[in-house]
């Protein structure tokens, strides 16, 4: 049994005032001499996004045959090249596409596709289709672990999706969750209430003492402390954003993704030390009545992403941020009788940012050479991860991914 002494090791718990400074210090300490203000925003499309109706091979006669009811009509697509067009509701993204800030990666998948939402999502989050890693440590967490500074900062990864995603999960919990509007149980606005202050002091002390390493209690104590330090740092970041707040960006209303991305923009501009943000939007499991649902989802996504980058641009940070979308799988090539699609394989990814190389990357899968009715993937998703890890986050993708994956030239 080993004990960790955190009472001395975690002085930050009592140093609220020092937080602003420590944020800056962490930001400056990037790994391997790389500018540390490069930020990655991961966007999960939960449920399995239909790649075929997102980036449409409208010139392929096989497409209309597979999708007689729910296919996007040729005249409706937003053309991006001779063969491909975006779903009509993605039209706002053309603003980014025309500037070369939107990369579309087609035919993304992995060997031996899994049709379970959960198994396949785990594969993407662990970046491990072949089960080569013994520990269930997410790919972003492995990247943090490669870098001592990121490994020890609980704000290195911040999710606005409610729970810590598997991509961020490891024993070292270098990840936090943020939602707006919760009271801080470790802090007090009421400086005059001595009783209240005494309780806070006692609670902080109880949370900062040592316990059995790796036990649930140890984990809970650490998270409790992080909850305290994070709240202070996040408050600082939001305060410094508000001064420069920009109203030009038109985030769509009542949209889950828009709300999350707006918060992310605030935190980035406010100088939070977070390297990887995680946001999610669900509802892609379109087994039935797909057209309306999918159109609404894509429309919200397009407007949210455009507003996000406008917001960042107006505050001079759009070149420091890359947004990458993914989904656990695409959907069956042929539509079903419920005007929907069942679980499939390859799909598309969007990679967006002021510093990336836009355009279509990767080869579109054949619609006639299917395996059990499913698309054969043409690009392993780990090639996209590798590209971002090496060229954007300045990490070593071979170590993080357990193998070398050819870049796509996105970054």
């Amino acid at each position: 049994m080993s004990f960790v002494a955190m009472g001395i090791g975690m002085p930050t718990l009592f140093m609220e005032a020092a937080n602003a400074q420590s944020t800056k210090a962490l930001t400056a300490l990037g790994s391997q001499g790389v500018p540390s203000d490069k930020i990655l925003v991961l966007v999960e499309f939960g449920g399995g996004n239909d790649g075929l109706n997102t980036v449409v091979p409208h010139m392929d006669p096989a497409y209309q045959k597979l999708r007689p009811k729910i296919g996007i009509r040729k005249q409706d697509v937003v053309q991006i090249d001779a063969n491909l067009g975006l779903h009509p509701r993605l039209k706002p993204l053309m603003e980014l596409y025309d500037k070369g800030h939107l990369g579309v990666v087609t035919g993304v998948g992995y060997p031996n596709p899994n049709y379970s939402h959960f198994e396949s999502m785990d594969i993407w989050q662990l970046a491990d289709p072949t089960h080569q890693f013994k520990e269930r440590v997410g790919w972003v967490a492995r990247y943090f672990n490669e870098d001592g500074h990121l490994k020890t900062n609980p704000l290195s990864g911040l999710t606005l999706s409610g729970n810590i995603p598997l991509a961020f999960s490891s024993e070292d919990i270098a990840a936090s969750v943020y939602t707006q509007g919760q009271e801080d149980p470790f802090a007090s606005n009421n400086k005059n209430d001595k009783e209240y202050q005494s309780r806070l002091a006692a609670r902080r002390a109880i949370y900062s003492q040592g316990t059995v390493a790796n036990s649930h209690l140890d984990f809970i104590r650490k998270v409790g402390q992080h909850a305290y330090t994070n709240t202070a740092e996040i408050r600082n970041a939001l305060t410094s954003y508000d001064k420069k707040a920009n109203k030009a960006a038109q985030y769509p209303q009542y949209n889950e993704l828009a709300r999350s991305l707006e918060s992310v923009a605030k935190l980035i501009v406010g100088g939070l030390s977070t390297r990887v943000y995680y946001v999610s939007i669900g509802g892609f499991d379109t087994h039935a009545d797909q057209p309306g649902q999918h159109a609404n989802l894509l429309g919200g996504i397009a407007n949210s992403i455009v507003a996000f980058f406008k917001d960042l641009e107006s505050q001079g940070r759009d070149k420091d941020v890359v947004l990458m979308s993914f989904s656990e799988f695409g959907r069956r090539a042929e539509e079903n009788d419920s005007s929907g699609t069942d679980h499939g394989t390859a799909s598309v990814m969007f990679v967006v940012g002021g510093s990336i190389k836009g355009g279509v990357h990767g080869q579109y899968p054949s619609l006639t050479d299917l395996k059990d009715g499913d698309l054969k993937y043409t690009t392993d998703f780990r090639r996209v991860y590798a590209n971002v890890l090496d060229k954007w986050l300045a990490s070593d993708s071979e170590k993080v991914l357990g193998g070398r994956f050819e870049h796509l030239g996105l970054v």
Partner: protein
Amino acid sequence: MITGEAARIKHLLRRAAFGCRSAEWAQYASLGEQGTLKALVDYDGISVKIPDLPTDSFGGLVAPNDTDSLKRYWLFRFCETTRPLEEVMTMFWHHHFATSDYKVQNASIEYRQNQLLRKYAMGNFRELLGAIAIDPAMLIWLDGNNSTKKSPNENFSRELLELFTMGIDGGYTEHDVKEGAKSFTGWSYDSDRFKVKFNQKNFNEESKEYFGKSGKFNLDQSLDIVVRHPSTAKFISTKLFEFFVHDDPPREEVERLSKIYFSSKYSIRELVRGILTSPHFYSDEALYSRVKWPVQFSVMLVKTLDVPYTWIQDMQGYTDNMGQQLFNPPNVKGWKTGRNWINTNTMTARLNFAKHSVDQLRYRQLVKDRVTAGLAMSHIKADSSFKTADSAIDDVWDWLLPSVKMQPETRQQLKDYMHTNAPKKPTQSFYWDRASGLVELIVTSPEYQLA
């Protein structure tokens, strides 16, 4: 091994009843370990005073779009029921057959599913499976409603095998998923009449090949095949064991429970009884090894502190923030449990709710002689020089965290708190503050997150 009858009963109550109120504790203590177990498990003879929600003649609720009201109703039931294990198991099945408002979007049929799960909570697993397969919310959630004879929808068929019965490694194939889907066709939910119906014309009458057997299987016949599969026995036994005991069920124990599953003809009650009477249940490995589920955390707090439900104005909002939105699990696999319940956000919600609950006791004059002033104050008051604050600390700790050894550092912190800024002549209100503060510090402690 947990020893001492009181300690064993309290362990049982934490897991199978989400704690108890002080008056209930007196009853359970007099029933003893066996009597308490029987009262919890064989609850059919115990009457419940909580009425069902009123519905119109078609089954619709007064507020058909208000899922938050439903959540409040269920939390109220959790706090007030005389059959606590019934609610705990209803929650277990809600997690197991996770159906979510974000797609169903109809509180009336969500409530109907909740009643169904309560009805079969400790019933027969085969009957439960048959009922849930054609439950309106499930037909919408997993698209049975849109399935057709020509192109059977695979959604329910897949999740039935992966999540509801056999488990991902249970030995089914993609072929079984596709063939099973055919046998589940023909059922639909008529939302205008609030009725589920079977239409022979929409049923796929082809011969199906399901788990190596061939026949023109219908829903019941396919479910019979699935429910008899050894993987189902193993999967359900394992999941129940993990829910009640710990994450590491020994193989022999799963085998033993699987035998009960078959010998009792799929009786959930007998499986649960088998688990709650197993030596594993009372092992040291089990004791405080579970991270409390948000509903468990908040219900237990309300019951233990005897807070009237109506005072906890936004218990539902807090449990949502703790990561468990009843009627709205994140996906068909239910919630991610264990350490997944704990992150910076959910910890904040847990501590805030605990504080909020104690505040209620502190501010309401009515209960000043109850929790805050009762147990703790009798000790503090005994000697105004505070020499006896230490024994108050031990008593309150043992009341809230029985069988948990207090760390010396924690005892020191609590002691320091009790003495900080103590006036020379303490007033009555100072005693109340410190007594409720002691309770607050313990229910916001890391230890209190475990059960």
